[in-house]
């Protein structure tokens, strides 16, 4: 039986999520024995238009030619999985969705006519069907392993959509919000990072996107109670995952009310 064929594609992104593959260490060798990696430009193999079983997509849709390329990948793939904040919610670059792109380009580049960009940076799911989303900025190695292993077993992985707080407390990390008044986004942010930031004494900044059932309004009220002005509190939502629905709505509502 031939091995499942895997591709890793890149759109507008920093390459950090692809590094989650490359940095797998020993499991990368195991992975290479389980699947054929057909296309992965950053690691070497090139065959962008091949028919494949699992396509991982890093990056957001940001330029006009991206959409055509994405449609082809979707046609060629059985499963399509987004990896990271860019592919899943539009990423940090989606902050420009709230600005005048044309004005920015003219203000920054000496020769604006060579810049090909869409007005918005958008998530992959805004354009094609996505079978699984892996949130994070960047994603972790364990997310990759869990996803691939589940698909090899013939199922989709169980998604943990709980808040960061649950993992923080399992690690017995002292709450940075309660003890230090840090504007921690853990109570509305999806777990998966291992509560990394609070474990080193700083506040979560929401890089894994919204958890299930996030009470963003109560979170916003608390952030302001900690002394953040409304605009600062809005920016806690409008950051790495400004395009994720729950964060986008809360942040823009506060900006408009300001």
């Amino acid at each position, binding site marked *: 039986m031939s091995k499942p064929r895997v591709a890793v594609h890149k759109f507008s992104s920093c390459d950090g999520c692809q590094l989650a593959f490359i940095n797998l260490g020993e*499991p990368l060798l*195991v*992975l290479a*024995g*389980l699947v054929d990696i057909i296309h992965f430009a950053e690691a070497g193999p090139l065959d962008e238009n091949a028919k494949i079983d699992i396509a991982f997509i890093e990056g957001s849709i940001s330029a006009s030619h991206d959409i055509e390329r994405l449609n082809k990948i979707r046609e060629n793939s059985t499963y399509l999985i987004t990896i990271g904040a860019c592919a899943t919610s539009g990423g940090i670059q989606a902050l420009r969705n709230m600005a005048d792109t044309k004005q920015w380009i003219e203000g920054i580049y000496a020769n604006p006519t060579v810049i090909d960009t869409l007005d918005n940076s958008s998530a992959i799911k805004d354009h094609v069907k996505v079978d699984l989303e892996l949130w994070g900025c960047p994603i972790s190695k364990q997310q990759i*392993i*869990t996803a*691939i*292993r589940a698909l*090899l*077993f013939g199922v989709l992985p*169980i998604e943990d*959509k*709980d*808040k960061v*707080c*649950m993992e923080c*407390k*399992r*690690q*017995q*990390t*002292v*709450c940075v*919000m*309660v*003890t*230090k008044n840090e504007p*921690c986004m*853990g*109570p*509305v942010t999806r777990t998966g990072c291992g509560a990394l930031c609070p474990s080193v*004494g700083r506040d979560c900044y929401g890089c894994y996107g919204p958890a*299930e*059932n*996030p*009470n963003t*309004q*109560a*979170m916003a*009220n*608390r952030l302001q109670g900690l002394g953040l002005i409304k605009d600062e509190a809005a920016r806690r939502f409008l950051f790495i995952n400004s395009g994720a629905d729950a964060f986008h709505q809360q942040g823009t509502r506060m900006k408009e009310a300001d």
Partner: protein
Amino acid sequence: MFFQANQLQQLLNTLLSKGYRCIGPQVRDGAIIYDSISSTEQLPRGINDEQKPGHYSLNNNTSSKYFDWANGPQAIKPLLFASRERLWESKQSDEGQISFELTEPETKPTVIIGARACDIAAMKIQDQHFLEQEFVDPYYKARRETLLTVAVNCSHPADTCFCHSTGDGPFVDDGADVVLTELDSGFLVDARTPQGKNLLEGLSLEDSTKEQLEESESIKANASKQKRQLPRFDIKSRLFNELNNDAWHEIATKCLSCGNCTSVCPTCFCHSENDVPELDGKSSAHYREWDSCFGQGHSYIHGITIRSETSQRYRQWLTHKFSSWHEQYGRSGCVGCGRCITWCPVGIDVTESLGHFEERRRD
């Protein structure tokens, strides 16, 4: 009996020489937490805490006492009911045979020093849940059987404490092996079990004086003056008649549904289990970890999340803790430690929440 304050190090030395791991309070990351200790220097001497809903901070004071503070975020629960542990592992041989192997819990004889009355009361409840039922939990049991408790009576309550109204404190009733009361000059000591008595070997014990016992009574009276208390109506009977009360929705507008309250609660025992297969698919580990009724998975059954809204999740927590808990364990699941109030990021106060359900007075 009584021993001088300088004997405390002797107590630690004795325990360590007997091969015990000593767990005691210490300051870390802005809170008093429990971890291994070998010296009284590590104890939070001259430190007191300031707690209020959603807030916790430490201050230095001029006291020479070691235990002049109210509880931090943990106590005994993490030592006995592990926040995450492997229960078993399955392996598939090259011939396709599947075998299962139990993961034995690693234990070491342990003494926790500094646990409070609420912690001891909570441990007794968790004992009921994990040990005193038809199916005994072997992981909890292995750790429980190797744990001895040197409890300390509380000297002052935090703003969030209400153990006096649940009947679980501020002084230890039963369940601890040794109980200390810290006085200005030393400790009143009461060995409650034969194992507890063994722990005191080598200490220079003196008979306690009338003055010392009076000082202890005054400490108890002081620690009983608590700002918060449970409302005085029949909570157990009432809550299930209030399932459609608007108050649940009102609380839910503030609640982050983050699960911090249930994680710091010393009696909450809910957990989820999950499998972590190795990438090669030849073996898989089965884990158990703390879960919460505030998460989606807690009420997920066959494709449906039954309690999808925060109001339903908060209601689940309170109706279980204060009502159906009585049917399961013969008492309420709340020991009045106040942790859920302090460590709630938005400072929701459970005593206030319950107050919403007090019967309106009819004129």
